[in-house]
């Protein structure tokens, strides 16, 4: 069995599971946010439920429109807050909250081998830690809050093996953008994307989060990386006295894969995904003339500490172009605090960036940097759909933090080496 099949078999109390099979599995963690949570609560209440299966396994994270952008958002967040008080489930107030997919791992709430569902499509992020994690809908969350269970169809696994050496400026974002461009936005629909190979073996945990995060952009049910020393080191840093168990969390050698591809990483340059699809990825060099109005560095894809470190390293070489607005969004309160302590915020402010509190904000066109008609942004986020960051005629290019920072300085799409070693 593959790692995904092992986790699903364990959670449905079966010896084995086969792709295509429907199972009812127990869940270790149920997540909802300020957009999807209120609908889940509505469904929960509608059928007269009066208790949750286990308050410790439910988390409500108001991150999309917070600090609340308008009265209606405030009402939605209040619904989560009231529910959390009534049922003693975890809720994160402003001051503790962060973007859900950065926050939960940082708090040690996700571990290898677990089954996590979240009413948010990027829940697949936690696959970076060797968990089975998948995005579901609000009604699924309502049902799981009551039963502790979820219906699932066992996905077939698509294996990606990365060989070679990453070039300078190439991180997890470039690997995943390149991968999606190879297979398309539905290239792994209904499937598991299992990321393996020597490049993944040495890939830092934050880059792994970025890769698993964007599995959904290829239509996958989950993305997963088998836990190893890098995972263990990370988990020890967030969970006191963490021990890796169960130990058997690798795909068997005789696992059956529906598809496999080998990717030669030597050839991959920093990528940029042209609107309106994350699969429209090209080498940054092909687009370096494109004029821009805004840069956003943040989100559940690239708003972690190492992302901010990479961006700051570029901003040491130049200031934000006078015709560009640059918004930095640390993904969580802790990332923000670390960024202050490490002097990154200093660098950003000196360079002329503005710092937003942790929020999804402009990533989904919510607030804190919405685009006007005809405006163009480079963002470290994960979706460049039509109107994703604002007006239907605005454009979003997806890139890694260094490319975003270099573009902010140049006022056009730029390769980091244009700024750092001109």
């Amino acid at each position, binding site marked *: 069995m593959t790692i995904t099949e092992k986790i699903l078999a364990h959670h449905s109390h079966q010896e084995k599971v086969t792709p295509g099979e429907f199972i009812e599995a127990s869940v270790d963690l149920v997540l909802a946010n300020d957009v999807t949570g209120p609908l889940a609560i509505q469904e929960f209440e509608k059928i007269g439920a009066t208790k949750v299966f286990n308050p410790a396994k439910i988390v409500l994270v108001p991150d999309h429109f917070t600090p609340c952008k308008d009265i209606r958002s405030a009402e939605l967040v209040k619904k989560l807050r009231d529910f959390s008080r009534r049922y003693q489930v975890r809720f994160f107030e402003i001051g503790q909250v962060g973007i859900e997919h950065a926050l939960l791992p940082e708090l040690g709430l996700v571990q290898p081998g677990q089954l996590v569902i979240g009413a948010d499509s990027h829940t697949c992020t936690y696959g970076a830690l060797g968990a089975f994690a998948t995005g579901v809908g609000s*009604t699924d969350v309502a049902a799981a809050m*009551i039963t502790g269970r979820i*219906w699932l169809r066992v996905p077939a696994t698509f294996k990606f093996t990365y060989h070679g050496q990453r070039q300078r400026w190439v991180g997890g974002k470039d690997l995943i953008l390149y991968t999606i461009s190879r297979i398309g936005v*539905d290239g792994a629909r209904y499937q598991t994307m299992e990321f393996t190979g020597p490049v993944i073996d040495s890939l830092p945990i934050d880059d792994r989060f970025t890769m698993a995060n964007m599995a959904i952009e290829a239509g996958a049910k989950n993305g997963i990386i088998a836990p190893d020393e890098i995972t263990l080191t990370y988990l020890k840093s967030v969970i006191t006295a963490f021990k890796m168990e169960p130990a058997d969390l690798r795909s068997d050698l005789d696992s059956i894969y529906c598809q496999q591809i080998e990717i030669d990483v030597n050839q991959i340059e920093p990528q940029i995904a042209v609107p309106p699809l994350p699969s429209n990825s090209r080498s940054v060099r092909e687009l370096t003339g494109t004029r821009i109005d805004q840069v956003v560095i943040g989100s559940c894809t690239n708003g972690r500490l190492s992302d901010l470190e990479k961006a700051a390293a570029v901003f040491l070489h130049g200031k934000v172009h006078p015709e560009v607005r640059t918004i930095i969004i640390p993904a969580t309160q802790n990332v923000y605090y670390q960024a202050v302590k490490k002097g990154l915020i200093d660098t950003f402010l000196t360079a002329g960036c503005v710092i937003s509190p942790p929020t999804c904000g402009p990533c989904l*066109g919510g607030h804190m940097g919405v685009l006007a008609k005809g405006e163009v942004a480079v963002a470290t986020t994960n979706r460049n*759909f039509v*109107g994703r960051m604002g007006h*239907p005629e605005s454009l979003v290019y997806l890139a890694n933090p260094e490319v975003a920072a270099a573009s902010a300085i140049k006022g056009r799409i730029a390769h980091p080496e244009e700024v750092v070693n001109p």
Partner: protein
Amino acid sequence: MMVKGKVWKLGNHVNTDDIIAARYLNTTDSQELATHCLETLRPELVQKMEPGDILVAGENFGCGSSREHAPIAIKAAGFSLVIAVSFARIFLRNAINIGLPVVETSEAKRIREGDLLEVDFEAGMIKNLTQNSQYFWSGYPPFLQELIKCGGLMKWVRKKYIKSE
């Protein structure tokens, strides 16, 4: 169950931002969501459609976010069903969970805007009254049939878990 309605045809990879833009996610009111259904893609559509009409799309319908607001908006707008060559997985489960019928068939490619369809769920048959043709699809696996028969996930949960407490 039988459904009859006129077709509104969409392309491939219609995403959840196309179906309901994020700026409307600060409400859970289904009627209000319905008024913005597919607004970016086909601004005139919700005004012109009639209750019972059918959405037909290409590949990967409903890709993108997990927002259940998308199938809710479609259902509340009055569409009786969505037929597509394929669905993105979260959209598919959301639709089934909330009781919006969905049919996955490659025959969707042959259906044109304005066609009048008659869909028989038990028989797994789509009659295209305009083109005078018929398409069959394999139907749902037993587990999903049970969910659909119950009227969606919450009714299934109530039957299976809450009543038995």
